[in-house]
């Protein structure tokens, strides 16, 4: 009994139980099992295992998994009944399995989205308080405008990022990079330029500024983890 013949039998079984499933789903399962079968035969032969034993092993893996195959097919049929066909065709080599449920937002993304929302709201309130209450619009000069304008822009980026991250929009990830880098650059410039003044007039603000830089830096490290990026790509 040659392993290749048993592998062909398994491949026919896979094509049978993936019939009528969405093309991308069926294609992925067929291709994955094909690769598995090839790897199985290649590895076992390289290890010196006889053909009969390899063939038996392949057949055993197929038979023992028939129940799971049927159950998986049932799940995919139910899922595809609730969504339209999204595949570009049987030969769409880059299609992923259409998701049966809404994407999972990693906890780290949730935390960063909340922090960004709070930061954005806080920045807007701070600018409004400074411009209208503390200083008054009439007393704002060019220097103040150079500080306030980027703060307003950054606040807008924070709020947009908070929304994009929370709802796992595809643009949420790159906007997160912009928000993180923007925070670090802007806050560092403000702190370096006005450290003495801040420490004299408003030490808590100076400390808060340092905290913003630290949080933004840590946030960027988390942001570039594969799992975070994958969450936005899957959504």
């Amino acid at each position, binding site marked *: 009994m040659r392993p290749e013949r048993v592998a062909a039998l*398994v491949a026919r079984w*896979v094509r049978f139980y993936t019939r009528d499933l969405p093309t991308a789903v069926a294609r*992925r*399962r067929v*291709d*994955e*099992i*094909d*690769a*598995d079968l*090839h*790897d*199985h035969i*290649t*590895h076992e032969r*390289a*290890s010196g295992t006889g053909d009969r034993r390899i063939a038996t*092993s392949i057949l*055993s*893996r*197929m*038979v*023992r*998994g*028939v*129940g*799971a*195959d*049927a*159950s*998986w097919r049932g799940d995919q049929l139910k899922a595809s009944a609730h969504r339209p066909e999204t595949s570009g065709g049987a030969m769409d*080599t*880059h299609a*992923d*399995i259409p*998701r*049966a*449920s809404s*994407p*999972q937002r*990693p*906890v*780290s993304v949730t935390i960063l989205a909340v922090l960004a929302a709070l930061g954005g709201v806080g920045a807007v309130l701070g600018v409004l308080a400074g411009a209208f209450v503390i200083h008054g619009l009439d007393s704002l000069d060019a220097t103040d405008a150079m500080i306030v304008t980027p703060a307003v822009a950054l606040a807008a980026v924070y709020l947009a990022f908070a929304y994009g991250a929370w709802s796992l929009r595809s643009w949420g990830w790159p906007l997160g990079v912009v928000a993180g880098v923007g925070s670090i650059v802007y806050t560092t410039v403000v702190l370096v330029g006005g450290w003495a003044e801040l420490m004299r007039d408003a030490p808590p603000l100076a400390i808060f500024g340092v905290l913003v830089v630290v949080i933004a830096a840590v946030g960027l490290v988390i942001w570039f*983890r*594969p*799992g*975070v990026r*994958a*969450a936005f790509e*899957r959504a």
Partner: protein
Amino acid sequence: MPRRSPETLLPLEAEILDVALSMLRSGQATFHGFGLAHAMRAGGASRSLTAHGTLYKALGRLEEFGLLTSRWEDATAVEGRPRRRLYELTMDGARVRERAPAAKPVGRPRRAAAEPA
């Protein structure tokens, strides 16, 4: 039946995450289906490779939960064989597995065999 949460793992799913975490710690960030089945046979009590249906259903479930992520390997880098689906443990997967108690093999663990190419 209520949907399972990502933190509630079946024994096979826990074992997959264990092996994935162990591979990651030894420097192997990605793995494929047969490689995983081989590693599970080498490290567990069973003399058989995990069944196709059982293995790929569990992998799909773990990916749905966000505990694994996957992609096709670069087709141009593949010569003379079908391209593999490469899986990778996510941060959430590592966190969930590290929190949960270790999956125990049913019998005596076997000596690890050589990794498939």
